[in-house]
């Protein structure tokens, strides 16, 4: 879907982006992770040509974007900014309608699409005539997301989209983000410096440092197969939590023993991460939970102790750093 090859961007003597190549598959969520100054934001902004690269090629759907008129290219790529970048002199409705107006959609079509998005983002129509400053930070960020999604772009670029939000609001929006089916079909490239956020939202993570990609892979690959000390060091602080988040029930399925006690009918899918299962135990520590593996149609009932036991068995089998 997106193919980046040998991308270079220099400012004077400083190589902000130093020969980067990567590919993102259709529908994949790629997170560019790193500390500030590592070149992740520059890389992102080159993708919709807010910044022009010195050299390298970028193609989206096989088309070289550096040969397209930048305005037309951008109208087909959704963009979400850290500080939302909503126009303070436009109402919410006008803000969302910016790209449809640029694309000269008719009014009825725009209106219909706005209504649809508002519903998906759990915003009422009362907000449509409000100005952005009258909204909370979380609401502003949702409007920013709606503005990026309104014209149905296949690609979405997100620059620290949740960086300006407080922790409570952020985790709430993370949940909505994961649940939003509009986003499941999108190819998303997201920039963040927040390791947890990356692990929570990414299909794959590109960990960057000093203008280069140090390692690119799934969260579990980064956690359990780090290519060097930089990668393991980067993840060290929140290691346990990251492990809980990156390991799914399917990964430890074979280590889980079934108590056979089916206490109720509801069940969790086996794709659930360990972290989320722990969340479920939070309310009923002495209960058993039902889990269902769709692939082999297996069904298990587990307790908290069994879950922890399986988790540590799985970890012991991983190669040690």
């Amino acid at each position, binding site marked *: 879907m997106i193919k980046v090859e040998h991308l270079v961007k220099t400012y004077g003597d400083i190589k902000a982006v130093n020969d980067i190549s990567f590919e993102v598959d259709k529908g994949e969520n790629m997170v560019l992770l790193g500390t500030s100054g590592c070149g992740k934001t520059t890389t992102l902004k080159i993708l919709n040509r807010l910044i022009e690269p010195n050299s390298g090629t970028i193609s989206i759907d096989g088309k070289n974007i550096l040969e397209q008129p930048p305005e037309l290219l951008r*109208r087909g790529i959704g963009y979400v900014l850290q500080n939302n970048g909503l126009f*303070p002199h*436009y109402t919410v409705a006008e803000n969302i309608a*910016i790209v449809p107006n640029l694309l000269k959609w008719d009014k009825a079509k725009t209106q219909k699409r706005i209504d649809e998005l508002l519903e998906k983002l759990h915003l009422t129509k009362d907000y449509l005539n409000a100005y952005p400053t009258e909204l909370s930070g979380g609401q502003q960020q949702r409007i920013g997301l709606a503005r990026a999604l309104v014209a149905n772009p296949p690609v979405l670029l997100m620059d620290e989209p949740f960086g300006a939000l407080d922790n409570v609001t952020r985790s709430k929006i993370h949940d909505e983000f994961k649940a939003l089916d509009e986003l499941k079909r999108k190819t998303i490239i997201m920039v963040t410096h927040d390791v947890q956020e990356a692990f929570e939202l990414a299909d794959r993570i590109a960990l960057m440092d000093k203008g280069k990609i140090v390692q690119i892979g799934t969260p579990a690959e980064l956690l359990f197969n780090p290519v060097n000390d930089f990668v393991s060091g980067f993840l060290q602080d929140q290691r346990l939590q990251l492990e809980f988040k990156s390991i799914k029930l399917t990964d430890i399925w074979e280590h889980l023993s079934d108590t056979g006690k089916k206490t109720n009918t509801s069940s969790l899918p086996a794709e659930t991460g360990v972290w989320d299962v722990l969340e479920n135990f939070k309310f009923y520590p002495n209960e058993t939970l039902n889990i269902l593996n769709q692939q082999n149609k297996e069904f298990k009932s587990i307790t908290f102790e069994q879950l922890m036991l399986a988790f540590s068995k799985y970890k012991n089998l991983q190669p040690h750093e």
Partner: protein
Amino acid sequence: MNEQQQTLFQFMSQQADKLGMQTLQHIGLTFISLFIAVLIGLPIGVYITRKKNLSGLVLGIAGVLQTIPSIALLGFMIPLLGIGAKPAIVALLLYALLPIIRNTYTGITGVDAAVKEAAVAMGMNKWQVLFKVELPLAMPVILAGIRTATVINVGVATLASYIAAGGLGEFIFGGISLNNTNMILAGAIPAALLAIIFDFLLSLVQKLNFKKIRGAVKVAPILLLLLSCLYFIPSAYGGKLTAGFTPEFMGRQDGNLGLRSKYGLKIHTIVISDAVMYKAAQEKELDVISGYSTDGRLKAYNLVVLDDDKKIFPPYYAAPIVRTDALDKFPDLEKTLNLLSGTITDSIMTELNYKTDYLHQTPERVAKDFLVAKKLWKPERGGNDGIVRIGSKIFGEQYILASMYSMLIKGYTNYDVTTKTGLGGTKIVFDAMTNNQIDVYPEYTGTGLLAILQAPAKMVNALQVSKDSTYNYVQKEFLKRYSIKWLKPIGFNNAYALMMREKQAKELNIKTISNLKRYLESK
């Protein structure tokens, strides 16, 4: 106090026509120049946000323009654009440029970078970013600049009357020349009110929210144009010949008022300062001007004086006037000042004025040459028996006389001298004297009679018969009212006179003011 207010009110209702016309001209001048300044300043302001390395230079130039004194800027305009509305508008718009350019620049650079980035990232082209995002968001700051420019323009536009562009300055400067407080206030109060009202209205526009501002911005150019058109309403009528009169002349019984009442002269008149009046007459922008009979430019520009056949211009014999307490303090002063008495005739004074006004010799040099020729000059004694303060009004003849008195006092007495020259019109120099800021300055009998004493019409008519009766009357009254003594007349009579270009007067066969009237009335 009540009386003062009432007379001001009476003056304003008497002059309601003129006041209304001047106010319209004033508003017109302010907004024509503002409109053009916005047309020029806004694009420049936008341009320098794109070419940041030019911004310092452009803002610097606009800033320097702003620091040029308004009178000087108007003066620079005359050789380029002549007199009247054109140079005034150009000068005003130059003043208005800086706040508009600077605020446009500040406003646009101040737009949140994230919002600009979002606009670009949504796929707007650069014009869409400018018109849909940057300009609307910068609008409150830009409007603040326009507001500043408006208030500056209302103020500076008062000076436009100096170069015959009309406006409320006509009353203000006429009033200062004529020592007429009501006239000053009749110009100054409306001018101040205009500034306050426009400032207030624009502050309301500034406070409108984004939604309403979009409408307001569309209405603004139309409104600006309409207000600009006001200027042209009063000047829609013209005539065969154009007269240029000083503000002082306009309001005097022995000036335009007398021309109207005694001669019945009706001529298309514009108001202009005497500094540029002669030049304008020479350059055929004006046909008839109100000059002084001893002015050196009369000779320089080939102008002729029209005979005052009905005797409306009273004699203006020059004499030094001195505070009596200064005469007590400096016993030798009176006889020293009287050394000049009787030495300067009309033709000598015209010659001396010609040397300063046209040959550009310094007043000091002209004064010294004259004194040396008359064998009156003595080297300075360098005395320190106290300091005599000499004043003068702001035209060449007065500078020469002040220099002569200064040299005489230094040469014949042990007093030192300071000079305070260029004290504007009669009111300013006379107030300086009554407030004990100066001891002596040269004054004219006619000015003393009409502008300072403001003698009633009957008395003026009675005195007009001879030069001595006027001198005796002002001498007596000044001593009584102000404790100021008129010393012996210097000799020349610098009366008001109507002048025309010699060639034109000959062609039209105009020798007297009555001739002029007859020509104007003929079809």
